[in-house]
């Protein structure tokens, strides 16, 4: 069916393109902005929503200690394997959405204990990042990482385990916070919400999936990648009543009933919007997303098309109000400095920042937005900036304080900095000169490094 989209701003500035590249991806270099300006804003949005199918990754292969990555066997290689994709992929929105879906379907290798399965799930999220959510839900319901993570593989008709049934409703698809009713203008209704009975009945319907531990260790490569299978003997064939409907439901029916539930579309569209825009969707935008989504076979692309074109996406270009998640800060920082993966230190740095890929804190994912920032994590953002700048600064030669600031801004791809912040950096550059003149080679380098570090990990650098 036809989709409806908001109208993009008519005369966009470079700040519009910068906003688009930062929030629909991981930072904006001058060359990327130039490329998008040449396409125009509608063309840029269209390129993001229609991913390349070949030559997706551009740039040098990632290495650790000059060797190829070995994510299955080496600690931290899984994290930098994915960061590398964010840095090198031409499909920036796909990677950004893959990250959002990792947060929505939060699965931790702490519970799964199998990196092969984590990477497989990551591929699944990437494949459907702009695709059909209903197909993704079916796939992830029997994904080996998910079956281990939420006990689907342990559940049987004799002992149904409620873990996946509960979270597929509460967190993945339907939501449970009564505040959603007001936030969605009543499109999501508390009175339509699921009950503990629905969870229990869905848990019965979901029984049948098993995990072959022997094959997971000793099977063929395909069996090791996915040692799950369906067993009719452990499936509960009895009648179940879910959301008021009764039948001999299976896992496929649960997936169908959940996406057809009246609260699903408003919950999912509201949630997706929040990954890109810090203010809640207005009624018109929410209705447009819900309508596009329902009338186009649960297509995520038709929802993202509304978000990337909506005026709220381009609001407050002079005062960004979305916190950079730690992973976005690191991958974006590497792109700003035109650097690639050469070590695995990013894994522990990201853990300290509060967002280690493949290790969300629990099944509800990472608390987003300002919750990423506390006195401990911002100190780790600072460490990340320090690592980003390694080997990127040399003696700049003699510079006036003003030139020192503008050169530093340019060297880190002209990130957003407030007028107040820029003034304070100027004051630093002047004060440093006054206190230490004449500056020697080290002092000139130190001043550059400090200004670049403050641009990256000062308060303005944490926002996009």
């Amino acid at each position: 069916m036809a989709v409806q989209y908001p109208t993009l701003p008519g005369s966009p500035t470079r700040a519009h393109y910068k906003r688009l590249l930062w929030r629909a991806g991981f930072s904006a270099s001058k060359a990327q902005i130039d490329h998008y300006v040449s396409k125009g804003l509608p063309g840029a949005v269209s390129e993001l929503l229609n991913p390349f199918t070949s030559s997706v990754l551009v740039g040098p292969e990632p290495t650790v200690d000059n060797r190829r990555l070995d994510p299955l066997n080496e600690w931290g290689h899984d994290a930098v394997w994915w960061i590398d994709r964010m840095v090198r992929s031409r499909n920036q929105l796909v990677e950004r959405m893959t990250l959002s879906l990792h947060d929505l379907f939060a699965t931790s290798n702490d519970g799964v204990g199998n990196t092969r399965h984590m990477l497989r799930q990551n591929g699944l999220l990437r494949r459907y990042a702009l695709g059909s959510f209903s197909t993704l839900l079916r796939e992830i319901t029997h994904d080996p990482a998910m079956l281990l993570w939420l006990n689907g593989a342990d559940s049987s008709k004799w002992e149904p385990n409620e873990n996946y049934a509960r979270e597929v409703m509460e967190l993945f698809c339907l939501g449970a916070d009564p505040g959603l009713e007001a936030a969605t203008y009543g499109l999501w209704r508390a009175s339509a919400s699921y009950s503990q009975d629905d969870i229990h009945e869905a848990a019965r319907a979901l029984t049948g999936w098993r995990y072959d531990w022997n094959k997971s260790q000793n099977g063929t490569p395909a069996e090791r990648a996915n040692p799950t299978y369906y067993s009719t003997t452990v499936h509960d064939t009895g009648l179940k009543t879910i959301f008021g409907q009764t039948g001999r439901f299976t896992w496929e029916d649960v997936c169908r009933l959940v996406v057809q539930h009246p609260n699903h579309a408003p919950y999912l569209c509201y949630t997706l919007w929040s990954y890109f825009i810090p203010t809640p969707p207005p009624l018109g935008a929410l209705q447009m997303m819900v309508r596009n989504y329902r009338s186009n076979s649960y297509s995520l692309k038709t929802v993202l098309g509304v978000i990337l074109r909506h005026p709220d996406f381009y609001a407050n270009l002079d005062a960004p109000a979305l916190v950079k998640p730690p992973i976005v800060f690191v991958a974006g920082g590497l792109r700003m400095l035109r650097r690639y993966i050469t070590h695995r230190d990013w894994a522990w740095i990201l853990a300290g920042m509060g967002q280690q890929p493949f290790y969300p804190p629990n099944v509800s994912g990472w608390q987003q937005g300002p919750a990423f920032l506390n006195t401990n994590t911002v100190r780790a953002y600072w460490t990340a900036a320090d690592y980003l700048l390694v080997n990127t600064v040399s003696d700049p030669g003699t510079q006036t304080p003003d030139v020192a600031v503008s050169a530093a801004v340019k060297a880190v791809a002209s990130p957003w900095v407030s007028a107040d912040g820029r003034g304070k950096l100027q004051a630093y550059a002047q004060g440093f000169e006054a206190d230490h003149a004449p500056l020697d080679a080290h002092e000139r380098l130190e001043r550059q490094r400090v200004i670049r570090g403050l641009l990256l990990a000062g308060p303005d650098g944490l926002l996009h």
Partner: protein
Amino acid sequence: MNSCGCNDWKSTHRRAMLARQGQRVPIPRAVLDGETAGISRRDFLRNGAVAFMTVYGASALSWGRIWETAAARAATPVTDPIIVSIFLDGGNDGLNTLVPVTGADYAAYVTKRPHIKLDPDNCLPLAGPVPSADFRWHPNAAGFKQLYDAGKMAVIPAVDYQPPDLSHFHSRAFWQAGKLDPSPSTGWLGRWVDQNGGAANPLQAISVDWTLDGSLKSATNPVAVLSSTEDAQFGMRNVWTDQSAMVGTLESLTQRPAANPAMAAADDALGGAVSIANRLSGLGSSPDLAAPYGDTDFERRMSMLAWLISANVGIRVACLSFDDGFDFHDAQLSRQGGIMTRLSRGLAAFQSDLEARGVADRVITLVWSEFGRRVEDNDSGGGGTDHGAGGLALAIGNGVRPGIASEFPGIADGDLDEWGNLKVPTDYRQIYTSLLGDWMGTDPADVIPDAAGFAPLPLVA
């Protein structure tokens, strides 16, 4: 690899060595002689300073800052009561932590838990000043037995809210908020800090963790997250000529009117982090008092907290989350077994650490989880339990009234709710009103909505 021709990673500039070594700097005479601000040398030394302090990145620290730290420590009263809150994330199984071992409850326990029942003969009796024959501790919970038998523990055996909704995220939010609000803007301890804390010291309310515990979310006064004191300072490679200019600029960048909540969060977090770095810079490292901690991160954080409390940096409320999760849907016996060893050992070591440092009379430690587990077990991974109601909470310290502090509703068939869960005789907010009123000496109504409806429990001696 080195396209710009530089290598600031391995600089050999002559001043690099100085900055790396951590200069030992004598305390200025003005401090030792107590010539200003009413601080005496005796105060300064008594509060934990030694004759020399190791100051990392000494160029960043003006004497004014060191002075300020010392003065702040000496000026802060040292008798203020403290609440430490320990969160067991995931819903600990109270019934296999504190096992009912008598009568109809024990019979039901054996029947309903074929996969994960514990043998009472291996479990640890509750002795000491207030013995109880009705329960025994998990066999690995030697630290709990030690604390209970010493008369330093109050047990709240079935605590939750009505009606229990079995969601991790709602239940945790309710406990942290101190009210039944699934998306609270403040936590109960955060509101206490807003009422009773100050505007200047983020360390007054501290998550000794990587993320902020929701209980500590405040509206006005600053709070802190600190996972390691050693990592608190703001250094940067190749910056040694004027680190203080860098840190000062960083701080000034945070001092502006914020245009939106995200900007305010960035400014508050970075400004707070710089303030903490300044406050901690003069403390040196913790004297080793050889408390019997094990080698886990939880115990490292507990020991750091005990030291910070004794170093008197102004802590009034602190939160920690245990290292591992408690969501025992499967393989519960092995998972919970290891946890019980480490958790109970860490809590017992923390108590003895506080005693060795002479601050144990100031601290009550509350241990809680967002709910209990289903009474009937399942067979997942050899035996597990689904979400239930009526969890177990513990209050620990010299100041608690020891014993079983509230009702256990029983687990025989007629005693359970329609879902086979424990009934809920005690609301979690009754713990809060007890601690806020009887321990902190403040009005619970300032913090807990409808506080009068949550009668305090006999937790505080």
